[in-house]
């Protein structure tokens, strides 16, 4: 406040245009502690176990509240208003749905196809309801966030995936029906459709190719739906840049495989010439492959995470807000390595510390520039009641996915 008034007076003296001197940078700080979250986590885990998972939504609400109360945007913490009883309903709904879905596959291919179609129809709506619930129950400075993505819009990013995987499932069912139960029939059908493996391989390849577009479309749908008060999020993210990022990650992956292969070959060659011990070669092999995996998770994963976070948040803005994300690869990779090693050593007990550290690194890499005064923002009632039915689904079932 005081700094802002100071800026205002300077701006007044030098005669800068009104909007530029009001610009102010809002830092994000995360003040959570690993040891405290460890205690919360263990107690949550215990209560969840002794209640046969019934406590889970309450544990989740406590976890979110802790993380929110420690996420300070410009000194003001986020707050979580979700009702654990509603989240309980959502939890049960999701459990039942996924149970039915996975059971259907065991009965008959046709049942699996029906379940798949139903899932494809329901899932985007649930996804949207989940975002409405989470954002509608998150506040900053007392003002609730909201999600205004349309129901139709939720289906768009998923459409190519549903179509492609749907055609795979249908193909399987049709061939299964044609082949019947007699082996000679199956033989005949296989000969008749000898191009089938190529067709299926082609569909899978197409799914891989379309993935970056799906990712970009998902991010656009999400970020364009975020709002708080009169601020409506807008994401400028071309699919091309996501494709380029995926290609770079793929290249890094191939490079890792190549280097691991060379290391394995050379060390194994050396031990074979000098030692001739099978065990030594085996150990070298296992260690090298392990290192390859490690590089994969510690370099390529963080590379993708960091670049995508920066790309997405740097492209996000609203009337008065602009985001800036400067998540760098080296610290993220180093932290990921440290977390993995300590998790392995402590058989998972380090997990709460890992989560807190990663959250801090990723959140504090982001800052906002506000061109205006959040103190003057007012929650718009009309926007909140625009889509009552959708809100209701999310609110009634308390569907909450993700952290």
């Amino acid at each position, binding site marked *: 406040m005081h700094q802002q008034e100071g800026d205002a007076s300077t701006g007044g003296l030098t005669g800068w245009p009104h909007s530029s001197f009001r610009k102010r940078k809002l830092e994000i700080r995360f003040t959570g502690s690993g040891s405290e979250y460890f205690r919360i986590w263990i107690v949550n885990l215990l209560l969840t176990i002794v209640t046969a998972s019934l406590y889970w939504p309450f544990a989740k609400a406590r976890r979110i509240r802790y993380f929110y*109360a420690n996420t300070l945007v410009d000194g*003001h913490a986020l707050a979580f208003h979700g009702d654990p009883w509603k989240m309980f309903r959502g939890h049960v709904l999701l459990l039942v749905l996924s149970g039915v879905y996975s059971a259907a596959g065991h009965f008959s291919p046709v049942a699996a196809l029906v379940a798949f179609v139903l899932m494809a129809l329901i899932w985007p709506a649930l996804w949207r309801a989940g975002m409405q619930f989470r954002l509608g129950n998150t506040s900053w400075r007392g003002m609730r966030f909201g999600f205004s993505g349309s129901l139709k819009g939720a289906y768009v990013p998923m459409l190519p995936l549903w179509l492609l995987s749907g055609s795979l499932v249908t193909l399987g069912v049709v061939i299964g029906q044609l082949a019947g139960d007699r082996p000679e029939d199956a033989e005949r059908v296989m000969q008749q459709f000898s191009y089938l493996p190529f067709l299926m391989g082609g569909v899978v390849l197409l799914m891989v190719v379309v993935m970056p577009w799906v990712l970009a479309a998902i991010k656009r749908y999400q970020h364009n739906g975020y709002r708080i008060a009169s601020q409506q999020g807008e994401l400028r993210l071309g699919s091309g840049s996501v494709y380029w990022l995926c290609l770079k990650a793929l290249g890094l992956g191939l490079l890792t495989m190549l280097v691991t292969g060379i290391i394995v070959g050379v060390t194994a*060659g050396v031990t074979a010439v000098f030692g001739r011990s*099978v065990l030594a070669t085996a150990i070298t092999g296992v260690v090298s492959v392990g290192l390859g995996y490690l590089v994969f998770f510690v370099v390529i994963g963080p590379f993708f995470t960091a670049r995508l976070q920066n790309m997405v948040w740097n492209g996000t803005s609203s009337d008065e807000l602009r985001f800036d994300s400067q998540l760098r690869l080296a610290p993220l990779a180093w932290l990921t390595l440290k977390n993995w090693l300590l998790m392995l050593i402590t058989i998972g007990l380090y*997990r709460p510390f*890992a989560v807190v550290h990663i959250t801090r690194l990723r959140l504090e890499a982001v800052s906002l520039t506000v061109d205006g005064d959040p103190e003057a923002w007012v929650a718009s009632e009309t926007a909140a009641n625009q889509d009552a039915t959708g809100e209701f689904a999310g609110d009634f079932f308390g569907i909450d996915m993700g952290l």
Partner: protein
Amino acid sequence: MQAETGAGAPSLLADHFDGRSGRARPVRLWLDGASLVVHDQDLDVVERRYPVRDVLWPERTRYGQRQAQLPDGGLLVAKDTGDWDAWADASTMGRGLGGGLAVRWFSSWRHTLVALAVVVAVGGATWQWGVPAAADGIARYLPSAIEQRIGDESLEQLDEVMLKPSKVSAADQQQWRERFAAMVASQPGEMTAYTLHFRDAGKRIGPNAFALPGGHIVVTDELLTLLRDDPDAVLGVLAHELGHVRGQHGMRLTIRASLVGGLLGFVLGDFSSLLAAAPAVLLHTSYSRDFEREADAQARQLLIDSGRSPRVMITLFDRLDAWRDERVAAAKARRASEPAGLAREVDKQVREGAGELISIAFSTHPSDDERKRFFER
């Protein structure tokens, strides 16, 4: 920050957000009986009252801001946790606001360690008794059509990737079927449905036999060749596999593995699914050793009941030993005769060596010596 109000109740300065505007209003809070009083500092006349139990009080953590959610959608925020806690204690004669069992437990390291010990104990008990009991219960009430389907599908899968049709003549196959049927018939009690399959498994798998869910027993040609002069040993192996079928071991193991995977995924899942899957594979093998012992006991009983000596199984282990030695020797000879092609050799060595290491670490069967002693008794 703390001060006495006119009525003598301890009070606290905090920020109030009304839920509509982003403006923070400085307020003074105090408790008046069962009500929370929120007194606006700037507008002296505005004073709101809320029942204490309708307010969602913050849990007492060391870090993070204190946020109390008011029933009208408003929010009270105190940035200094120490001030807030001191005020909450003073207003409630030390009981505090927003406490509870969970808060008391996670506020103390001693309680946390107790909780950790209980979690580990419950986890261990679940692993030792819970998962097996649940899986066996599921396996017992699972419709047999589903088990049959899973067994049929697994056999189809194996036929596609690992197994080839048997080279044993149809007449010989029929003879084995009849011999085994006669052996099984010699034992009193309920008959178990099983199907005997003969397959060529190639050199990589070698002499082997295994049981799948749904009563499928698969014998490899290599096993019949290895024991061609000792049919009783073959019957002993088949009896061992029948033991697996009788105990529904395949299905029980599958369900146990998926239960363990699911539980671990639940606890660790949101960080890494890979990390959750690894112990599931590791632990799966220790369950399976118990099943092998059970099947060995069944085989021993069936051998005795059909008037055979359990010692025929010793032949099996000796022959398997010899077969393994022979393979290693052959590999060595090949290496000596072919100095060229280093890269290929290295690749093979790595594979074989890795296979050996894995078989030591992940052995699904008890050791041969232990099993020999069992059949010698």
